[in-house]
């Protein structure tokens, strides 16, 4: 599953995920017609609208053995909110519960389902990791991404102070209260730069968009990358736009 931000803004992350999964012997399919998981609607309180998006997403992935998403918040949305959004329709609800059980954020899929402790890759540099709120507190995952990162040869993983603090994205929050969102981001980026890391890694499209946007604006030398890119060894400059 590649959701809106990943599709539009970070296609290289999806490509990296596909490369990693294939290298590990996973047959990857991409059901056409994917758009967004519906979380922006849900978070702003448009639950009937979110339910309609959830219903179509549930049907799109009915045939999949596992569904892997390179974004903790979208995985959280599918896993914890779809079933209750669709509670009015027993058949859909059952399908949503089944989908929830088969849906994984990338690092969790690699470690929990595939039992992988190390992905062959290399990356030279000092790396620090930001815990996305939904992956950390929503899905209770903090170890898998760190374990995978730490096992990449050439990666010097340093812990980010207050790694569990929000980056200030919060979906529509980032434009409803842009100044507050940016002030939270500033604190985060100061902590990142304080680690001396060359690269900041996260497992969520939203956090990446926020933190990369902030790093680029301040002209920082720190690059913000997705875990998949480090694991795939494909950390080249992002695709240019003509």
């Amino acid at each position, binding site marked *: 599953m*590649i959701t809106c931000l*990943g*599709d*539009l*803004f*970070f*296609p290289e992350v*999806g*490509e990296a995920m*596909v490369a990693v999964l294939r290298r590990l012997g996973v047959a990857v399919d991409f059901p*056409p*017609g*994917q*758009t*967004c998981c*519906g979380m*922006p*609607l*849900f*978070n*702003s*309180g*448009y*639950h009937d*609208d*979110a339910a*309609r*998006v959830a219903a179509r997403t549930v049907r799109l992935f009915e045939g999949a053995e596992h569904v892997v998403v390179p974004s903790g918040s979208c995985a959280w949305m599918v896993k914890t909110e779809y079933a209750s959004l669709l509670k009015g329709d027993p058949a859909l609800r059952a399908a949503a519960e089944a989908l929830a059980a088969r849906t994984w954020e990338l690092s969790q899929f690699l470690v929990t389902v595939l039992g992988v402790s190390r992905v062959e890759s290399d990356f030279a540099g000092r790396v620090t990791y930001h815990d996305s*709120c*939904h992956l950390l*507190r*929503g899905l209770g995952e903090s170890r898998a991404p760190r374990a995978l990162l730490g096992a990449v040869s050439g990666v010097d993983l340093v812990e980010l102070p207050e790694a569990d*603090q*929000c980056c*200030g994205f*919060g*979906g*529509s*929050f*980032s*434009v*409803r*209260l*842009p*100044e*507050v*969102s*940016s002030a*939270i*981001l500033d604190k985060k980026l100061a902590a990142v730069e304080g680690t001396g890391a060359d690269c900041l890694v996260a497992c969520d499209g939203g956090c990446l*968009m926020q933190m*990369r*946007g*902030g790093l*680029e*604006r301040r002209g920082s030398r720190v690059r913000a990358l997705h875990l998949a890119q480090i694991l795939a060894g494909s950390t080249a400059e*992002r*695709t*240019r*736009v003509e």
Partner: protein
Amino acid sequence: MSDPILATPFPRRAGAALKDAYLQEALTIATTKFIDLRKEAFAGLPEGDALRDRARGIKEATLQRLDHYLEQLADNVQRLGGHVHWAATGEEAREVILRLCRDRGVKMAVKSKSMATEEIELNAALERAGVTPIETDLGEYIIQLAHERPSHIIAPAIHKTKGQVADLFSRELKGRFAADPEVLTAVARRELRQKFLQADMGITGANFAVADTGTIVLVTNEGNGRMVTSLPRIHVAVMGMEKVIPSMTDLMVFLAILARSATGQKLSSYTTLVRGPRRPGELEGPEELHLILMDGGRVQQIAGPLREALYCLRCGACLNVCPVYRQIGGHAYGYTYPGPIGILLTAMLEGDRAVKDLAHASSLCGACKDVCPVRIDIPRMLVDLREHLDRGRIAPRSERLVFRLARRLMESPTLFRACVRAGRWLQRPFVRAGRLRRLPFFFGKWTATRELPAVAARTFSERWKDLA
């Protein structure tokens, strides 16, 4: 109750707070300290999680039979010689106190820190009635001198640096005092001693009230609660009706987690248990004890969407960890209770319109839920509150329209792709090295401080046919 600050819209209030250097310094220091202390306190309590579950269970069960426990509490307080007043609204609660002041010739009232009395703006009402209220909690004393309101549930003057407090004391108390917490505390102590002896009435809130013993419980760190409840001839306690708990056994559960969550202490320095007024033969204690049981919008939420907010112990832990509170402090919220739980309490006490903007003052990061001693699912309740505002058409029409359109796009891959293509075309004049630096209209809210990635030349969906 609301503040004059409300004349300015919330985003502007928040923006102003971000520019207040003193506030930023004070907030960062204090909230970070609270976070660390709390973490440490729970690290030393292996049964902490089990206690939190139990505390939540007690709150749930008590609310199921709130009428029963309140009646039991009232009976027991009366049996001990106290008076009980039922107040449907904050105004009624205020009236009870003002009437007591009139009837008993009260000229001065000393107060122990109480959010319930903040909620009903008691100090202003007392002043209008010719009664001098004196706050005796150090933080409350500071903000009373400054003519401000508390900006944190347990640390009312958290927004002030020690330098600011020294300046305030020097100005208001006519002296020159160093910015040293010990010196300033001694000054306040000296000022307050006389007031304790002079006052006719002591006013407190209640952290808990135990139904089967009629005990009013106050948790403080300065001992002022003890003086307020024992020196003046009348003691009035104002409590929200949800504060009743069934038994002393339950109290032990709450005491084990309250101070740990609030300040990281195992117990606060003073836990004051008040059972009735002074009995014949006793040397201290008030001649009269009055307990005011206040509803003010609480009871209707027992069966309402904000029910869980009635579990709140007012520990303030959710404020300390909230990235938004940590940036803007309490005053910007504009109502008595700030922070994540404050938004829910404001909705409960002030109604939907008061939280039109505040409901969105959260990134939904979930840190509040993680630290709440009774595990209130604040992020989930905020999302539900937003839904309620959308349904009630309190959210702006334009916003509702935008989200309806967004849903259309998400439902139709064809439309979605068309929009991607349109976006790629529209962004052309703005793209620099794959990024958007400065965008007009709504998008400027993002690009004022952050680069926005440009829509990729080929989205993942478009690349897939080469990958498949």
